[in-house]
């Protein structure tokens, strides 16, 4: 070797502050779009005298939001608990079953076609049924919808992740004469992490949808969904929109929390993940 080897990809340089600064600059276009959209919305509603049951102005929604903040966040928290509970139950069950299926392939061959099929059907159609199974006023009936919604994408993805290990990685483990458990811990689980987090992000969105849709079919008036439905029926559109705003904030927050967990758990990946694998 005549010359020193050079890394193809440099290590990330600079401190946290510089990274945050660069991130902030990256966000400027998106923030401009938001401001522009709100401006056009506000101006359009005023200029064309859009009926408030069609679309209230952002300022009216904001007023409803600030006036009802206390109640809104209480409803939001109620619904978020349902979503979180359903997310935990659904994703937990999916990961456990995926591990069993990845370990005993014949079981997987028997179950996977149905799991993939179930992943493609609108499971949300079951929402009224779970209200019949559980007391519709309790959180558990909504958790059930959210859990079922979360289950399939996570299950299918984690099975795929656990089984998409390259054959040579397994051959290498065999050359080290290690057992199945070590192969699981050292190879299969790390390989599956990007798949897991991709599906968890999907599930975080589905959990909020499941909880709110469940509430549309009858639920406690402490919840967002039931209030959105009621306020829309009572012509309190600004309040209904304010509730939707709370649902959005919680949903995005949930998603970002999962995305952050992903970044922490898979620091070894290049920024943005592996594109071609």
């Amino acid at each position, binding site marked *: *070797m005549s010359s*020193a*080897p050079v*890394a*193809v*990809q*440099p*290590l990330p340089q600079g401190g946290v502050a510089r990274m945050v600064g660069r991130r902030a600059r990256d966000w400027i276009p998106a923030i401009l779009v938001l401001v522009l959209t709100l401006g056009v919305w506000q101006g359009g509603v005023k200029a064309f005298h859009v009926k408030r049951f069609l679309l209230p102005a952002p300022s009216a929604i904001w007023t409803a939001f600030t006036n009802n903040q206390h109640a809104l966040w209480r409803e939001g928290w109620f619904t978020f608990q349902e979503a979180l509970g359903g997310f935990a139950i659904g994703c937990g069950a999916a990961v456990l079953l995926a591990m069993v299926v990845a370990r005993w392939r014949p079981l997987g061959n028997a179950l996977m076609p149905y799991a993939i099929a179930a992943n493609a059907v609108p499971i949300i159609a079951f929402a009224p049924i779970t209200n019949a199974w559980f007391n519709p006023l309790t959180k558990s009936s909504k958790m059930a919808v959210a859990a079922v919604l979360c289950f399939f994408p996570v299950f299918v993805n984690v099975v795929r992740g656990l089984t998409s290990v*390259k054959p*040579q*990685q397994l*051959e*290498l483990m*065999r*050359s*080290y*004469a*290690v057992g199945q458990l*070590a192969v699981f811990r*050292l*190879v299969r689980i*790390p390989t599956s*992490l990007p798949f897991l987090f991709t599906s968890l992000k999907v599930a975080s969105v589905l959990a909020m949808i499941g909880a709110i849709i469940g509430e549309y079919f009858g639920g406690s008036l402490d919840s967002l969904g039931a209030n959105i439905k009621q306020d829309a029926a009572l012509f309190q559109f600004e309040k209904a929109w304010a509730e939707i705003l709370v649902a959005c904030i919680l949903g995005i927050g949930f998603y970002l929390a999962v995305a952050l967990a992903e970044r922490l758990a*898979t620091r*070894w*990946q*290049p920024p943005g993940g*592996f594109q071609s694998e």
Partner: protein
Amino acid sequence: MTVVAINGVSKQFKGGTVALRDIDLEIEPGEFVSLIGPSGCGKSTLLRIVGDLIQPSEGRVTVNGKPARKAREDHDYGIVFQDAVLYDWRTVSKNIALPLELAGTPRQERQAKVEQMLELVELQGFGDHHPWQLSGGMQQRVSIARALSFDPALLLMDEPFGALDEMTRERLNMELLKIWAETGSTIVFVTHSISEAVFLSTRVAVMSARPGRISNVIPIDLPQPRGEATREDPHFFELVTDVREALHGSHEQVPS
């Protein structure tokens, strides 16, 4: 003591394909033996049988005087594949340390060994990088460092430089010879490059296809240590010609 003894090994895959028939080969300590042959001659299969990654249908293999299975369980060999097969979630250092970790080597000893290995493959300072940050040639050097980290007596290499460009390949050939000289290990090397086989080896086993057999074993009596001058030695070309003719001869016997 013979490092690798292959006696009457045959391999028939499910479906009837005879990959190998009646292979006999003995490899002595410190030898560098290349297996060369057309694709489909079973050279990689033979290497995997030596490593007990595949079971032979007939015959037996001993490594360091032990059955292949026992040798694998005792970590008697290190293996390098055509792809580097690094674990993406581990840093370079942790990839190299993996076999030591599995063998229960204490942390401090592991770290010292990793440093030594990084120096051996000239990757000092890259221990904290992740595999995706390295070029293909560098990744393969990490893979070699990992295979050598636990000081195995035997190194099995399955077309390790096959996916690299010619210049990188020649550079890594030189490095491999240096490592071979420094560690004194025995190497079994699968390749389809005639010049690579001749340049590196002390013996070249020429294989023919369908069914895979060893048709010739050609001793390479080029002086050691080898270097750039070796590639220009007239005797090098003679030996390349010998191996090529042996390969072609083995082709002619096969109706295709």
